[in-house]
């Protein structure tokens, strides 16, 4: 093929997005438009979707530079609720730190932290009813913790031990907790988005009052499932909340590879005729308020909402990732929206409802709580130490009943176990 230009036409050029800062680069976030807290209007929850479109390009913020809650989006939570929110986020972080260490110590194969993003799971969980169904991605462990799911059970799953309710079948952190209305996590990105819509449609078909909420990273909005979900949700006016956690990074790819150079992720709502909100994802009160708004809207049959949580993935993508290979280490420290736990802590202190001493004492207590839970879970075994589920369980739940071919294969697996490990007594 000839590459010579026809006539005087300029050569076309391919634009490949490039993040602003690579390893070693100084970081300057002055290009980010950080709005003034309290200045964003709060439309009525039953408004037409188009009324929210300015908010898709704005940034809803409640906590101001003096750590005060201001403006129409202030959810006006009492001090007790704020302390519970703070404690839940701090517990989530303590849990992440301990599990990360556990992976490094070889107790399990894999872990993913949500450091810096705790507000985007804990605050929505608190704003939803406990029986609203959530369809999370892999970075919303804060929902389970907020809903009081036992952290021992979470660790059993991470360690794939004999007490793991998922019987060691799932990669660590791919929790499933029906009793907490927490849908089974899939490794396949974005698949939960249309599923949440289907659940919400089912709730509407049955005349229920429950709604669905789902989470996705900004990178995964590029999947076709995102488009399908948004289309179905608006076509059927499904009672569902779509959360996009825009933490700027999809493993090593910055948000520009999902389209962030041209518009916001909240603005995706505009084209579907859906309500959209873009919130400071490190402001737990703004996140709570946005979820409360969207939940009220969905519950009153006014339709779905897309919420972009503008935040930052403070740690590596997973225990298998080293972010030092692709981004500047200064990004985290320079991030202009700060840290969600620190911001809520300072807010409570400003209210006279908390102190640095109380916070330090709480952190020590939570570390101890996680340590005790970890020891408890380790009694059930850690990965690779043999205290796993019996071999026959590998063949169960593929179908409701075992067809002949799985019965045959189950017998084969148990036979192989007897050959390889004759000392093991259980099936």
């Amino acid at each position, binding site marked *: 093929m000839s590459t010579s230009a026809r006539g005087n036409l300029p050569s076309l050029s391919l634009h490949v997005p490039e993040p602003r800062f690579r390893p070693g680069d100084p970081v300057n976030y002055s290009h980010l438009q950080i709005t003034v807290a309290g200045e964003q209007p709060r439309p009525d929850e039953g408004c037409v979707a188009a009324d929210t479109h300015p908010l898709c390009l704005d940034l809803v913020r409640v906590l101001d530079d003096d750590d005060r809650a201001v403006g129409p989006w202030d959810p006006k939570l009492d001090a007790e609720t704020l302390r519970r929110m703070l404690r839940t986020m701090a517990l989530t972080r303590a849990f992440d730190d301990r599990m990360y260490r556990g992976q490094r110590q070889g107790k399990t194969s894999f872990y993913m932290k949500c450091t810096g993003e705790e507000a985007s799971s804990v605050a929505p969980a608190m704003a939803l009813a406990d029986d609203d169904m959530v369809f999370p991605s892999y970075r919303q462990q804060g929902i389970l913790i907020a809903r009081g799911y036992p952290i021992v059970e979470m660790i059993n799953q991470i360690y794939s031990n004999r007490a793991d309710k998922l019987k060691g079948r799932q990669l660590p952190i791919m929790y499933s907790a029906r009793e907490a209305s927490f849908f089974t996590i*899939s490794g396949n990105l974005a698949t939960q988005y249309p599923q949440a819509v289907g659940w919400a449609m089912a709730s509407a078909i049955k005349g229920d009052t429950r709604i669905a909420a789902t989470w996705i990273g900004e990178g995964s909005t590029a999947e076709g499932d995102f488009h399908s979900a948004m289309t*179905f949700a608006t076509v059927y006016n499904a009672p569902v909340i779509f959360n996009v956690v825009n933490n700027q990074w999809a493993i090593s790819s910055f948000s520009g590879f999902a389209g962030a150079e041209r518009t916001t992720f909240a603005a995706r709502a505009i084209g579907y005729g859906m309500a959209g909100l873009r919130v400071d994802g490190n402001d737990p009160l703004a996140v709570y308020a946005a979820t409360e708004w969207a939940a009220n809207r969905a519950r009153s049959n006014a339709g779905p909402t897309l919420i972009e949580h503008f935040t930052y993935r403070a740690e590596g993508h997973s225990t298998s990732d080293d972010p030092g290979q692709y981004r500047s280490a200064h990004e985290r420290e320079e991030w202009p929206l700060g840290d969600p736990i620190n911001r809520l802590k300072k807010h409570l202190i400003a209210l006279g409802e908390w102190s640095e001493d109380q916070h330090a004492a709480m952190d020590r207590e939570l570390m101890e709580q996680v340590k005790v839970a970890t020891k408890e879970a380790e009694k059930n075994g850690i990965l690779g130490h043999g205290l796993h589920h019996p071999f026959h369980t590998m063949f169960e739940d593929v179908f409701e009943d075992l067809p002949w*071919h799985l019965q045959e294969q189950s017998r084969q697996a148990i036979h192989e176990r007897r050959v390889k490990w004759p000392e093991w007594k259980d099936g």
Partner: protein
Amino acid sequence: MTYEETPVSLAEAPTRRLNMIEAINDALDIMMERDPNVVVMGEDVGYFGGVFRATAGLQKKYGKPRVFDTPISECGIIGVAVGMGAYGLRPVPEIQFADYIYPGLDQLVSEAARLRYRSAGEFIAPMTVRSPFGGGIFGGQTHSQSPEALFTHVAGLKTVVPSTPHDAKGLLIAAIEDNDPVIFFEPKRIYNGPFNGYYDKPVEPWSKHADSVVPEGYYSIPLGKARIVRPGNAFTVLAYGTMVHVAAAVCAEKGVDAEIIDLRTLVPLDIATVEKSVEKTGKCLIVHEATRTSGFGAELSALVQERCFYHLEAPIERVTGFDTPYPHSLEWAYFPGPVRIGEAIDRLTKA
């Protein structure tokens, strides 16, 4: 022809003659009536009643929240069905042609098939994906495919292909009641009448065929049970869907005493019926319309070889579509019709 699994009381049940579309419509109607959690959805299935009329009248009878049209998005159709199943509904989504099921494949393979397993039974996908399937209708590349092997290869999916109105109704009812995800492929070539492969001869409508006699009301045919279409001793024919009729016609024309088995369910397979037959006849002919390489026939051939080796008196014969996309003008050159099947029969007979 006997149906061992048909309850005795049904022998007395009034019957009607239905074509396959009417039988499918009847099954949907009965299940929607019996179970308020059954919902039907898909492209053009609502007001219009489906491009093949399989859902005609259902929306009027059961209302829009239970029978509704969807956006043109197979990924969305399957994805929302998974979510509905997680809620507790029993969705019956339609994919307009099996050729267009691929955008929904991730939701089927990664989600529906594995929901029960990965959640240790906390969540299930009790859905039945109906989809017109197979060629012989000048459908060209994208209205003729038989992609069953893509689904039989997926742990956690059941795959069903009926070949008569009687079976279509009973199997569809069983599929909808089944708590596992079922891919229900409907051979569109035989919606209106059985097709014997002699495309240049007039087509007989279902009304002249014994298998169009369908009991009224509820009955089900268990998944995983094959049907012996014709007992015989010369060799065993393993087929499903349209090819049951084609194989039977060629055997009849050749006057061979073949035992013809309609597998009906591919996964789980009725291995006992297959083994028993091949042990008796010592020879096996496998027929499907799908392409040959890695087709379901390869699995059948391997199973028969492994399990009936010492009874086999001839190489297993596999008659299939060619390893090409389904052509338009050369459809009857592609289709595994009387010549291809007949030559395989001759080889088996002489062996």
